[in-house]
Structure formats: C-alpha cells, structure tokens
C-alpha cells in the first residue's frame, strides 16, 4: 500500500513536470533560506556554551550609576524588543580589581574568580619583526584561566602556564605568525609599552579559541604582570577596569546567593554612590547592585565591553522572515495543487467509485507532497551549502557546515521537511478527498477550484511581498541618506593613520606628528595634514546637567588646523591659534578648582553651536566657570558621531593629549594606491618600520552603519526570495487558470476580442488582487518602517513615492509572471481551442 503510494506519487510528480519543477524550486529556495537561518541561530546559541562547568560560570555586573554603558550602547529598537528586555539591560560589566579578592574571601560559595583586563595598544617585536594585534585580543588574566575555561592548551600546563613573571601564553595563530611554528614555548618577544619590562617568554601555546567563543584572545599574560596592578588594587572601588567571571561551587542556590550578594554590594559600593552624590548633587544616585549573569547568556546582553553580541531581536526577526518565506512557498504549493485538481479530479472520482476510502486518498496525496518536500529540503541543503560563504559575508559570521554534528543537521532537515509536508500537503489532500465522485467525473467546460480561496492566498502572498519591498526600499533610502548626508565636515579623501604607540606614551606620538607634518609638506599628493587624539567619534560620554538639561558632553582634543582641515566653519570668535600660544596653557586658578564645572578642560575651548546655545550664549574669551576655561570660538554643528545619534553638545581643546591618529588629506586626482605606498615607505623610515594601520575617514563613518547594511542585505535577499517564490506561484497559477479558460478565450476571440482585450481580461483579476495586497500592505509596512526608523536620530520620512514605487514593483513583477501564459493564450488560434467538440 505504502509502496504503491510512493510509486504513484513519483509517477505523478513526473507527469506534471512543469508544476513539479515550480514547486521544487519554490520549496527548495525557501528551505535553503530556512536552513541558513537555522545554522545562524544554532551557531549564535552555541556561543560560550562549550565550557565543562558552564552552568557554574557567571559574569559579574553592577548597575550602571555612571550612565556610561547606556551611552555607549543604545539599545536597538525593533518589533521584537519586548521579547528581550534583558538584552537592553545595560549594566556595567567592568569591576574593581580588588572585587575578585573580596568576593573570594567573603563568600565560600565562590570556587574561583577570573579577572580579565586589556593590554592596550601594543607593538610587539619578535624575531626582528614588529606586529600590531587587535587590542581586544591581548589580555591580562588570572592564573586559573585555563582551569576555569575549557580552552585547550597545545603545550603548557593549565595549572602553571600563567604563573610566572614575564611570561605569556599565546595562541597557535600568533605562534605561527611570530615564530613560524607551534612549538614556541621558550621563545621571546618584547612589548615596549609594558614599561621597560624585560622580554616576555612564551610559557604555553593554546589552540585558537573556537569561533563560537566570545573571547578571541591571542595572548594571555598573568594578571599580576600588569604594571598598573598594584595601583588598581590600591584604588579599590574607585576604578572599574576588569571583566570578572566567577565560578560558583556546585549546588549553590543562585537566587539565595544573588540576594546575599545584593546586600553585600550595597555596603561595598556605598562609598562610590556617596562620592557621586557629592559631586553631582542635582542627581540622586540609588544604591549600586551587583548582578550575576550566566556566562553562556552574556553575549545576549548589550552591555559595553563584551566582545560578542548576539542581537536576539534580529534573531527573532530572521526566524520570522524565514517562517514567512516558508509560508509563502507552502501557499504556492497549495495554490498550484488546488488549481490543478481539475486534472486530478477524475482520478479521484474513479478511485472513489471503485471503493477507495477517504483516508486512502488523503494519504495518497499527502505522500506525494511529503516526497516533494523531502526532495526540496535536500536540494535546499545543497543550495544552502553553496550560499554559505555569501551568507557568512552578509551576516558577518564564520559558520562552517563541518562544525555542526551530522545529527543536528539531520534532525533539522527532518523537522523542516515534515513542516513543509504538513503545511503544504494537508489542505490539498483534504480538499481532494472531499471531491464528490459524480461531480469530479463530469467534465466541466470551465472548471475552477474555489476561486475565493486561491484569491485570498494570492493576496496574502503579495501583501507580504509588498511589505518586504517597502521595507527594503526604506532601509535602502535611509542608508543612502546617511551616506550622502552632509555631516558638516568634508570626509572625502582623508587617510587615517593610527598611532603605533600606546596611550601611555606621551612623547613619541608628538614627535611622529612633527615628522609626518614635515613630510606632508614635501609630498605633492598630500593636500593637508592634521592629528587628533580621538579616532572618529567623540569620547568622554558622561552625562552632565547644564542649565537643567541633562546632556552627554563630548570632548574632542584636536590639532590647530582641525577645523580648516575638515572645512568646519568657525561662526563666532576665533580658531585655535598657534601664534598666540595661550590655547594650550592649563588654567589652574582657585576659582576653577572650586567651581562646580562639568568639563575638565581647564583651558581654552571651542564649543559647537549646540553647546553654545545650551550655555545661554555667553560672552567669548571670558573665563567660563561652567566650561572650566574661556570659550574662544564657536564652530558650526557637525556630526562627530554617526547619524543614529543626535548632535551632542561638544567642546574642543587643542593639543591637550598626545595625538592618537594622523589624518592625511589626499589631493583629488592622485593615484591612491601609489600614494599610500609612498606614504607607507616614508612611514617606515620615520617610525623604524612600525605597523602601518590605515583606514579612510569615509569608511570609518560608514562602519557605524555596518549592522544596518547587513540588515539591508538580509532583507533584500529575503525580499528577492519571497518575490521569486510568489511569482513562480503566480506563473503556475496563471498557467492553470488560462488553461481552464482556453475555450472562453477562443469564443471571445471569435466574437471579435483583440489581443489587448484578452490580455486585459485575463490579467484584470491579477491586477486587482495585487492592488488589494498593496492596500493591505500599506498600514503594516507603515508601522514597521516607522518603528525601524526610530533607530536613527536623523532619518528620512517614509514618503508616498516609496510606497508607490513598491506597489509598481509588485504589479510589474506579478504581471511579468502571469504574462507568459496570458499572452500565449491571447495570441493562440481560436480554431484550435474550439475544435474539441
């Protein structure tokens, strides 16, 4: 029985080649999309979950009374925000160095505590070469790091590898890069910024951390080796600097312990709160709490300072989109099989008259669908594997199919094909079985299956497609808007060279700046040169109360020609002046020291318009106690940060810190690669071959929108897939529908209908349905689009054109899909269609 069913199913699939092909393409494309999303989600969920005692590991956090975390990471708004309130809980995850020791001595529940803190920018010299590594990947960590976490060592003992002075464990990757071999134990390198330490010896080599680890460390140095260690310890709760992961003893009651910890922290941090309240009496700071977040869940939280963030809402959105695409593909199948019932109805009739039960018929058709679904899912898997590299580059992940266990993939595929089979197969099977034997055997002249249902399904499909099109267009428009928006400064052709020196180094960056400046005068390809002590985007993100407005004040330390370089106009007062020589002098008068200032400038400042207005347009060149220095000029507002944020009040000081990056303006029309080569060559001469790190200012600006770009690509891809699937469905549907109307078309032609008459007749309902879908899509997409645009302080308005263009795209693609069949039917010779008498 089952065997016969399968045999019949296969035969039927081959008989209706066109429709089987359309169905397989539709279902497999949708499957591929779902499989990719599934891989992505499984990969994200697997983050940090591979540690042996993972359930005992927790990240220590404190409530953020400084408001710094919330400033650095603004929670993204989305439709699914309500599902992950926790993600937006912006605690401070940096802890005082001393906390680990105090916790251990106060709580027997704590089995171990690992502090981790960054090494900072560092030039590493090994075997006469110099290297610069990603700052995040070089850390100091407590000695039990390899005991608490499951990162396998290739050489070295987990108990002792981080115990010696002037030693470090490095990754396989780094060992190969520096020494050309994994057997690097005993080899040495230097890190000059670690203040005149003797060379560091490699004490162990660990396997590269797995890709699904939040930590991606390349070098781990014993925690006590940090030259600032003693200082940090002594500063107690005044400094928050280290990540702290605690391991609780087995069987510890998490809730009881959390409670204990809370009371402890109120007392422990009471001093911090007291100081804050004294400094800023306008604000009332509450108690400071401590919170333990399960280590494996830490990456779902958006707090600043954690290396991997899994945006749960984007996962929900992706899963939602995958579901929608699956749904559209199933609708296709249902539509086509229902419309195709004509061809099958006689078959059902005959079966029924020879005594086949209802269940048999249902099962027969279900088998057919399930078979098709399985084939589609397998094909989808193949497509997914082929598309994986593209997907990785879009989603900025590094998913390898080989890292997944065969079992998990297999289960996923089975579930997917069952869902497809049931979703797509049950309804047609039931409908087919419900056909009355007599009516299905009588040959109708023009027979159409429940046109209302298929109309409803088409409207549903195209409403979804239109919503996707509108979203894509909006996101695209917003990104184009940000790309072309006037930031208030000229970002073109600016090469940013990163200082190779650490922030502790006060002298070397200044010397290099002079040298680069002198060089820039001799290079005809260079138009201008400046330096800043920031990268791009301001810093100092503390909140202050200025004339009763709570603001985040940005401090930018720049060079004398910063404003000229970026073409930012000074609209009042003067620019910084080297000739005057007074702008860099630190003011240290009694009045400043006792004043309740909110800027620590203590010297001449140039403020932006926003700040100037906030301050109430004070007189220039007078000591401004609020600013802690004289305001010598006001510059036009410009976007020191990306356009998701509003222009904040900002002030500039000149040459207060050592420069952190050097900005080179390349003359227009210069051969860029050659110019960069030339600058690199000179850089090597000037810095004794220090690492040459460069970017472009416009790229730096664009970097802020990477996540949105990725989202655009995802939505665009989803949109394409959905439209293709829906159009395939419409194509098949129109084929069947016109087939059913062949005779009518013939008659109308004989009655004098022209081809355009017929084209209109056949496509009228399509046009109406698409128009209806469009009308349904408008309010939904309006809501969605506005919700998304909330992410941006500077945004486009969703204009009617956007919607109209989307509507036109929907109608045109739909017409394109149906035209093949309708035109074919309209030009056909009526004699043929009327002959069958």
């Amino acid at each position, binding site marked *: 029985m089952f065997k016969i069913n399968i045999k019949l199913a296969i035969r039927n699939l081959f008989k209706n080649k066109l429709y089987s092909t359309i169905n397989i393409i539709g279902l497999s494309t949708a499957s591929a999309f779902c499989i990719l999303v599934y891989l992505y989600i499984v990969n994200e969920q697997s983050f940090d979950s591979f540690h042996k005692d993972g359930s005992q590991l927790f990240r220590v956090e404190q409530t953020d009374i400084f408001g710094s975390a919330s400033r650095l990471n603004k929670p993204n708004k989305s439709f699914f925000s309500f599902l992950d309130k926790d993600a937006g809980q912006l605690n401070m995850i940096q802890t005082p160095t001393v906390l680990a020791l105090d916790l251990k001595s106060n709580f027997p529940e704590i089995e171990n505590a690992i502090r981790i803190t960054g090494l900072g920018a560092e030039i590493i010299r090994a075997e006469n070469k110099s290297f610069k590594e990603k700052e995040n990947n070089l850390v100091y960590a407590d000695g039990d790091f390899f005991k608490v976490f499951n990162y396998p060592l290739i050489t070295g003992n987990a108990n002792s590898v981080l115990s010696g002075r002037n030693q470090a464990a490095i990754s396989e990757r780094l060992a190969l890069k520096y020494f050309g071999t994994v057997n690097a134990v005993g080899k040495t390198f230097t890190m000059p910024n670690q203040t005149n330490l003797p060379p560091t010896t490699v004490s162990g080599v660990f396997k590269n951390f797995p890709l699904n680890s939040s930590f991606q460390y390349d070098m781990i140095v014993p925690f006590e080796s940090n030259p600032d260690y003693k200082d940090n310890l002594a500063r107690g709760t005044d400094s928050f600097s280290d990540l702290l992961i605690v391991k609780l003893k087995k069987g510890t009651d998490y809730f009881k312990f959390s409670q204990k910890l809370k009371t402890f922290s109120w007392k422990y941090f009471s001093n911090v709160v007291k100081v804050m309240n004294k400094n800023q009496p306008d604000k009332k700071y509450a108690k400071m709490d401590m919170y333990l977040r399960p280590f494996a869940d830490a990456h779902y939280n958006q707090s600043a300072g954690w290396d991997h963030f899994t945006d749960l809402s984007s996962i929900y959105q992706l899963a939602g989109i995958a579901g929608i695409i699956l749904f559209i593909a199933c609708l296709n199948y249902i539509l086509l099989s229902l419309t195709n019932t004509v061809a099958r109805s006689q078959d059902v009739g005959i079966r029924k008259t020879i005594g086949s039960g209802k269940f048999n018929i249902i099962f027969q058709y279900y088998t057919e669908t399930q078979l098709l679904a399985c084939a589609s899912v397998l094909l989808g898997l193949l497509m997914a594997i082929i598309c994986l590299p593209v997907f990785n580059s879009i989603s900025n992940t590094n998913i390898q199919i080989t890292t997944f266990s065969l079992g998990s993939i297999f289960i996923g595929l089975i579930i997917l094909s069952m869902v497809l089979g049931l979703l797509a197969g049950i309804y047609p099977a039931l409908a087919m079985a419900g056909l009355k034997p007599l009516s299905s055997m009588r040959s109708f002249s023009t027979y159409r299956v429940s046109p209302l249902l298929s109309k409803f399904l088409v409207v549903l499909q195209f409403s979804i497609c239109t919503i996707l099109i509108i979203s894509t267009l909006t996101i695209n428009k917003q990104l184009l808007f940000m790309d072309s928006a006037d930031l208030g400064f000229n970002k073109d052709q600016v090469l940013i060279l990163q200082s190779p020196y650490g922030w502790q180094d006060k002298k070397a960056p200044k010397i290099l700046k002079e040298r680069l400046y002198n060089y820039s005068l001799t290079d005809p390809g260079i138009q201008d040169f400046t330096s800043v002590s920031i990268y791009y985007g301001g810093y100092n993100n503390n909140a202050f109360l200025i004339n009763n407005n709570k603001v985040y004040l940005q401090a930018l330390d720049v060079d004398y020609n910063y404003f000229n370089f970026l073409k930012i106009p000074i609209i009042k007062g003067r620019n910084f002046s080297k000739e005057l020589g007074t702008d860099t002098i630190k003011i240290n008068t009694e009045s400043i020291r006792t004043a309740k200032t909110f800027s620590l400038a203590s010297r001449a400042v140039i403020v932006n318009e926003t700040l100037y207005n906030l301050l109430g347009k004070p007189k220039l060149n007078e000591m401004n106690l609020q600013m802690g220095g004289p305001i010598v000029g006001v510059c036009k507002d410009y976007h020191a940060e990306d356009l998701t944020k509003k222009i904040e009040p900002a002030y500039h000081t000149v040459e207060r810190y050592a420069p952190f990056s050097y900005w080179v303006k390349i003359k227009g029309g210069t051969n860029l690669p050659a110019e960069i080569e030339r600058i690199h060559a000179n850089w090597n001469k000037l810095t004794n071959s220090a690492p040459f790190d460069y970017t472009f200012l416009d790229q730096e600006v664009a970097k802020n929108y990477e996540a949105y770009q990725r989202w655009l690509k995802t939505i665009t891809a989803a949109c394409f897939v959905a439209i293709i699937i829906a159009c395939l469905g419409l194509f098949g549907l129109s084929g069947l529908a016109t087939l059913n109307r062949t005779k009518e078309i013939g008659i109308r032609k004989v009655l*004098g209908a*022209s081809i355009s008459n017929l084209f209109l007749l056949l496509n009228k309902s399509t046009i109406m349905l698409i128009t209806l879908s469009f009308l349904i899509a408008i309010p939904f997409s309006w809501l969605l689009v506005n919700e998304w645009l909330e992410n941006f302080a500077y945004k486009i308005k969703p204009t009617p054109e956007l919607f109209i263009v989307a509507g036109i795209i929907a109608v045109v693609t739909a017409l394109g899909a149906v035209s093949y069949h309708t035109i074919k039917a309209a030009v056909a010779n009526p004699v043929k269609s009327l002959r069958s008498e």
Partner: protein
Amino acid sequence: MLSLKNISKYYQIGGNKSFVLNNVSLEVEEGEFVSIMGPSGSGKSTLLNIIGMLDEPSEGYHYFAGNAVHQLKEKQRAALYKQYVGFVFQAYHLIDELTVYENIETPLIYQNYSGSDRKAIVADMLDRFQIVGKKDLFPAQLSGGQQQLVGIARALITKPKLILADEPTGNLNSKQGIEIMELFAKLNKEDKVTIIQVTHSEKNAGYGSRIINLLDGKIDSSIKL
C-alpha cells in the same frame, strides 16, 4: 461577396503533406444561403473557418467583400471579420460565467459600442428572439435549443452581412432544429443576410439556395436548388 481561388490547406505529417483542402475554388454571392455537406473529416469546418478568416489557407487566393484577404495583415483581417462575420457553433460556445444578456452583449463591447447603445441593441435582439424572460439566466440553465438561439442572437447582434454556422443543429432535436432553420431562412430572406452553414442533414440543407458537397478536401458537386 466572397471568392476562393485554388485554396489548399495541408498539414505537414512526417514529411508528407496531408491535404485537408485541395485546390478548392468557390464563389458566394451576397444574399445566398449555402449549405456545405460531406462526410466527417472531409474539411467542411476547415473551409468554413477559412472563409471566416479564423484560419489561414496554406495556398491560394481569398477575396472577401472586395479585399484580397491573403494580402491583408492580421489586424486588417480582424477588422474585416468584425465588420462582416458572425459565427454560430454546433456546441453553442456560450461563455458559462456570463448571463444570456451578457453573452449577447459581448461582441458589442469588442466593437466599442457605448453602454446605452448596447442596452438598446441587446434589448431589441432579446425581443426579436423572444428570450427577454431568460436574459438573466446562465447558459447552464437553458435547454440546447435555447442555448443555440442565444448563440445565433449573439452572432447577429453586430448585424453581420455573413453568418457562418458549423453544424448549428448538430446537438439539437429535430423540432429545435427546424426552428433554427426557419430562423435562418427568415434572416436570409428578410434581412438579406448571407448564410453559409455546414450540416449533415439533407433536410436542413434544403433550406438553403445551394448545396456544396465536399469529398476528401475537394468540391465534389455544387447544386443550386
């Protein structure tokens, strides 16, 4: 009214030409009532379709109301057809989704009559065929004879000068057949409509003024009555 000169129609079947019409020449004067007879497969329908410009001959010359049809473009041919010809079919070929009224109205829509004109013309026609009471019924609700009546009313609605009927009574009983034939005869006499019909019935053929016998794609005989 129309003339065919050395018209042939053949299909290429496996390298051989299979002739459906072989060198047929035929003249039909305005006001004639011609009946075409012949065994099944002799090419009657094909000939009728060619006369009606629904089908194209493989060879030969075709003149219609003074136009050389074989030289006309598709569009001009369609215009000529719209102006002169009305078709009646054995299987009626009414549109199932449209009411009697709408079926009859359809050709007028394709000839761009205004709404009010259409109303008047269709009302007239319904009156003349005495089917006013049935105007809101669908084809499936009518008997075969009634359906054919609607089919003829539809063919006549644009006042064609030529009616082509392919076995118009083939699906009807003899009483219904006689009604239709009398209607044809009346149209031919009173309205001077030229009629060419295909029929298997000697009796029906007798209503006409000429009988043409087709045999194997050739005119076997042409007898004036």
